[in-house]
């Protein structure tokens, strides 16, 4: 988060300087006015959004999602894991280690990919932010259009890489893993 903060403020500072050089203080003030107005108008929406995010975090724990993933196989598993990916709370420090643990849980590769793409595309905890900071209509259309992506990716992997267990991508050529029978 510290890194993102530095990048954003650095980029803002550079653009403010460029803005000043192009349009003088008038342009900078106009830009800052827009920022202040947006911040003022968005405050309550953001507050509500973060309360939703907090509630989702305590409602959908990693244990709950893990249970769902181990119940299904085939196409059902793809749909469930894509949705579970979307519902899985937390940032990359939380979900990457969770997905990497699929190896120990002996979950197949297509579940891993649909879960990961579900997280990337759906990430339901992002809806409040997308709706409040961009527009509810754009968020709705975007979800509608991209909804099939994690399922399509899961189906492609199921069709063409069916026998690839979740650990395979991490092995180097010639390296062998002791485990087998990874189909759920």
């Amino acid at each position, binding site marked *: 988060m510290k890194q993102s903060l530095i990048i*954003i403020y650095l980029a803002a500072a550079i653009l*403010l300087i460029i803005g000043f050089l192009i349009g003088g203080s008038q342009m900078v003030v106009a830009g800052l006015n*827009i920022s202040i107005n947006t911040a003022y108008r968005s405050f309550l929406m953001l507050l509500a959004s973060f309360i939703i995010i*907090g509630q989702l975090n305590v409602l959908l724990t990693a244990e709950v999602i893990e249970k769902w993933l181990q119940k299904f196989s085939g196409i059902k598993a793809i749909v469930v894991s894509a949705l579970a990916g979307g519902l899985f709370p937390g940032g990359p420090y939380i979900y990457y280690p969770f997905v990497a643990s699929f190896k120990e849980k002996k979950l197949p590769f297509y579940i891993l990919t649909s879960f990961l793409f579900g997280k990337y595309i759906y990430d339901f905890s992002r809806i409040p932010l997308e709706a409040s900071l961009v527009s509810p209509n754009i968020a709705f259309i*975007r979800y509608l259009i991209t909804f099939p992506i994690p399922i399509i990716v899961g189906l492609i992997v199921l069709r063409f890489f069916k026998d690839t267990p979740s650990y395979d*991508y991490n092995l180097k050529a010639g390296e062998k893993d002791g485990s087998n029978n990874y189909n759920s």
Partner: protein
Amino acid sequence: MAQTTIILSIVAVILIVINGKLNGRQYEGIKLGLNQFIRTIPIILGAFILAGIIEVMIPRDFVQNWLSKEAGLKGIVLGSFGGMLLAMGPYAFFPIVSTLMVSGAGLGTLISIITGWSLLSLSKAPFEIGFFGVEFTIKKTIYSIPLSLIAGFIAYIIELLVFT
């Protein structure tokens, strides 16, 4: 905007009630959300400053020629790769998308930029390489590019058919 705030507040209240009934952890959820909000405020404010200055600086001709509905496929391609390069979190990313929308970017461009960022953002690469290896990351990126372009193209068609 007031409508969105009301809807989000209703959803928040519903989730608080559900958590209260199911696990009694509703206060923990509120505390968690508020803590995250407070920690994120500096990033959000930085993003608002960035978005504000982009909005006044971005040349109308550039939006018209490269990002608007009239830009067609150019906007979709630029959106997908632009989303890939915007290696930042949602709090910083969405205000920038909002700025592009206000400036006149087309639906195809907006959807491809959000999809490109969701699937391809370079900020994910260090984690993917670390956990799944270089090969997985490269393959995922290559396979994801057409998905982002297709999403943008579908949005472009919807804009032509429905919003014109």
